[in-house]
């Protein structure tokens, strides 16, 4: 056991971009306060450590693990299970761990297609031998191994039990600070809670006052198709903003920066499927009443899955393209 009695904290990353790690650093000087109060036992992006050190620790000896990234490989699954076992609290940190995130969009395609594109077809690629990563490779008489990829991307709680969720792509420093504070002071809400306000983003949006009581969309526009008025509700300007279907807590940074909300904080507690809820809200308010008119307006949203399930396909009600079988073949 460690000589100190400080709570042990671990940060770990799975299928992620590194942005969540960046947020921890974005705590700026506040991070010193955190480091003072805890023992960091694992943080691969910043500190050296070995997996077998972790394996040797007694079960539940880590107070809290903040895990970011989705679960796509056998290694990530193994680490998720190991950290679950060693931790009293396991927090899904960031959209990918909470709901699959951007990597979850790969659930539209068979694994074979993902590999073929990335190792054979991508225009930026030089790989004439069409080499792909192998799980085993013999080198000087030794068997070198790599983790295998799963057929689909999963959110953390689709693999192991999760105690708390910290949403965002990435979670904002204020949300991170509040989560760490709640952990260290033991002021935690009921298990399974999302550690962010349970109200839609519009509530804290600086454009809230200009949101019309009755929205009506004559057409949908993407941000590059117009000069966005920085003072007026984005929905009133025909821009697909997911604020009404997304949990607040980020301080409305995207609308504040003249860009629409894309939904990274996930839904509020009353909603099961964020994409369907925002689809419902936006589409019901299309102006046209006749089918050709409706079809024309909806053509302004050319990629429904990428728009409505930007961060949540893996945790949506159907989870992935349903015709994808267990081994990439329909079953």
């Amino acid at each position: 056991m460690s000589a100190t009695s400080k709570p042990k904290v671990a940060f770990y990353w799975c299928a992620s971009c590194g942005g969540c790690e960046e947020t921890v650093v974005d705590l700026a000087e506040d991070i010193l306060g955190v480091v003072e109060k805890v023992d960091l036992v694992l943080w691969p992006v910043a500190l050296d450590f070995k997996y077998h050190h972790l394996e040797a620790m007694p079960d539940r000896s880590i107070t809290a693990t903040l895990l970011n990234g989705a679960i796509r490989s056998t290694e990530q699954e193994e680490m998720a299970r190991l950290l679950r076992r060693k931790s009293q609290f396991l927090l899904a940190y960031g959209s990918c761990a909470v709901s699959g995130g951007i990597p979850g969009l790969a659930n539209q395609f068979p694994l074979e297609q993902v590999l073929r594109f990335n190792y054979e077809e991508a225009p930026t690629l030089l790989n004439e031998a069409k080499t792909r990563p192998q799980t085993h490779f013999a080198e000087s008489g030794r068997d070198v191994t790599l983790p295998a990829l799963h057929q689909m991307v999963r959110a953390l709680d689709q693999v192991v039990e999760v105690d708390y969720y910290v949403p965002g792509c990435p979670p904002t420093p204020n949300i991170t600070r509040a989560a760490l504070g709640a952990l260290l002071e033991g002021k935690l809400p009921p298990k399974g809670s999302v550690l962010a306000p349970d109200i839609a983003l519009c509530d804290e949006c600086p454009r809230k006052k200009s949101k019309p009581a009755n929205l009506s969309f004559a057409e949908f526009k993407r941000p590059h198709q117009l000069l966005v008025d920085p003072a007026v509700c984005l929905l009133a300007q025909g821009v697909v903003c997911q604020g009404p279907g997304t949990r607040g807590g980020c301080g409305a940074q995207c609308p504040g920066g003249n860009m629409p909300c894309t939904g990274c904080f996930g839904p509020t507690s009353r909603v099961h499927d964020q994409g369907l809820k925002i689809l419902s809200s936006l589409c019901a308010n299309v102006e046209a009443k006749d089918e050709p008119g409706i079809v024309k307006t909806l053509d302004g949203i050319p990629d429904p899955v990428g728009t409505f399930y930007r961060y949540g396909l893996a945790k949506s009600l159907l989870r992935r393209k349903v015709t994808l079988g267990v081994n990439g073949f329909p079953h």
Partner: protein
Amino acid sequence: MSQPTEPPEWQPRIVAFFCNWCTYTAADLAGVSRLKYAANVRVIRLMCSGRVDPQFIFEALAGGADGVLIGGCHPGDCHYVEGNYKMLRRFEMLQRLLGELGVERERVRLEWISAAEGEKVKRVVNEMVEQVQKLGPLAMPQRFEGWDEELSRLEAAVAAAPVAPAAPAPAALA
């Protein structure tokens, strides 16, 4: 119980969301008129087709339904003026989303059926059952189970591993 028999032939299960003012009343009319239609639909009465949250449709499919039928008032006849238009607009986008997610569009159908059209309830239900019968089972619960089989191996291995003893912390952790 008698001898174990062959499992019964697969029959589609269809969840129907009917508007209280038109289609549900039409289904009632079909009943009192002694019209017979396929018994594969489970009707859920809502006050308006505009109340059909897309989550209801996907939850039905995810829970094992093979198809979803939505019945509302004809355009212009909605008891709440606009509800059926809201459903129609959502339906157009839902069809695109379903297509991209690999669910055949014929599994979800929207029909305007007025309170006087008991005959139409019969025709639409029978048509839909026949259509879904041709498509075969959607079987989402079974698909979910199949997808997660790739997790079960490691899960079993972890469960079988011995609990780690309280080991001295290595230098890096001290």
